[in-house]
């Protein structure tokens, strides 16, 4: 079955689950389980990552309209990676550190090493999509 004939892509379903439904459910469970926690932080997280998750689902769905090796597929894949990084940033609070309370005392989580790992994985994915685009583009050019 050609990719363009599918109504909903598996990638879009996975993105919907992984970037939207599971995190939202987790946050609602946390808010219900720990009413003493400040809701403000979680509301801010939801405010940022929900639109990004919707964009990721739409990109995933749009990418099945084009075959591998197509310039538009490449563009959508790279955009997907960029938005995934933004989603992760939104999820960790949008900065390199998070201040939380530890018992009655405040503590700070410094996440710069974690962010380096995020960027490394993002670059790795971009390299993959570039190689995929180059490999399949050759096939398209040869066929035409």
């Amino acid at each position: 079955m050609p990719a363009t004939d599918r109504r909903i892509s598996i990638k879009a379903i996975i993105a919907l689950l992984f970037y939207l439904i599971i995190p939202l459910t987790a946050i609602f469970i946390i808010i219900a389980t720990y009413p003493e926690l400040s809701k403000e932080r979680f509301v801010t997280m939801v405010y940022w990552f929900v639109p990004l998750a919707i964009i990721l689902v739409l990109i995933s769905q749009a990418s099945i309209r084009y075959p591998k090796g197509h310039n538009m597929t490449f563009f959508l894949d790279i955009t997907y990676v960029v938005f995934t990084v933004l989603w992760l940033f939104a999820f960790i609070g949008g900065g390199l550190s998070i201040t939380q309370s530890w018992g009655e005392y405040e503590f700070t989580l410094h996440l710069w090493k974690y962010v380096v790992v995020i960027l490394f994985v993002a670059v790795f994915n971009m390299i993959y999509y570039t190689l995929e685009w180059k490999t399949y583009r050759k096939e398209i050019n040869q066929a035409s």
Partner: protein
Amino acid sequence: MNKEKLRLIRIAAITMSVMLGTLTMCNLLTVMTHGIELEIPDEGQYTWAIDPVDMKMIIMSEFTVKNHGAYDIENIDINARIITGQGKELLNYEEKDLAVSSGSDKKFDIILDISLNDIELENWLTLLYMDTTLSLVVDIDAEYMFGLIHLTVDETLDRDWIAPLSSYAPEHDIMPWILGAFGSYSMAIDQQIWDIQKTAVEYLMEVDEFYYASEDGYEILVTGQNSSGELRELECAITIPVDALSGNIMLEYSMTFGIVNDIVVINVQEVKVVYASN
């Protein structure tokens, strides 16, 4: 590049992405929802003891780290300092490379070992005479999730310190003078203190002996020695009952002092701190 190699890279990329997403959701949310907690003892949870042979004051307590996160907390470094309101450091406590395994609660014993002979007289005087605020400055560093997350705690806990001798001053006419004279060694001098100090120094230049004892066991004995020009030698012995230690701390020191060019000069010598149990 052939498609087989491309597929392997794809698998690696997906695996890394899924792991990263899982780490983000599972671990960060755990940390943010009291998955890790620290219980620091409050004022009433300290135990004091004295080792009279080695002249050590031992303060014992414990703190608990609850690690209900998915990974061990490692490389916990703790630095705690007690600082007086005048900025003098009374105590510096350090522990390094502690660890708390995932899913466990761990108690750490705090044993502060203070040599009574090593406490500077200046700090003793500050604590004896001056109501102040003692600041416990706590710095904690730790690593979580393979060191990818660095945790830091920088807390300053202020506690009021009521100087044991300051409350006795009004009961005896001469006490403010004496306290002023001794305390001038460490106090920041304002005009009012300067007046008290000068009066006290003038008084102590004249008397051969001064003794004061309170009902609660505080004793001050000052013995005047030889005068040399504008300076005079004094032998001082101060006994302070400490209920928490079930005994007394005796501070013995000699000093020369006087007024030179209208300025109070005080030189403290031969300090000795003695503990005596009841």
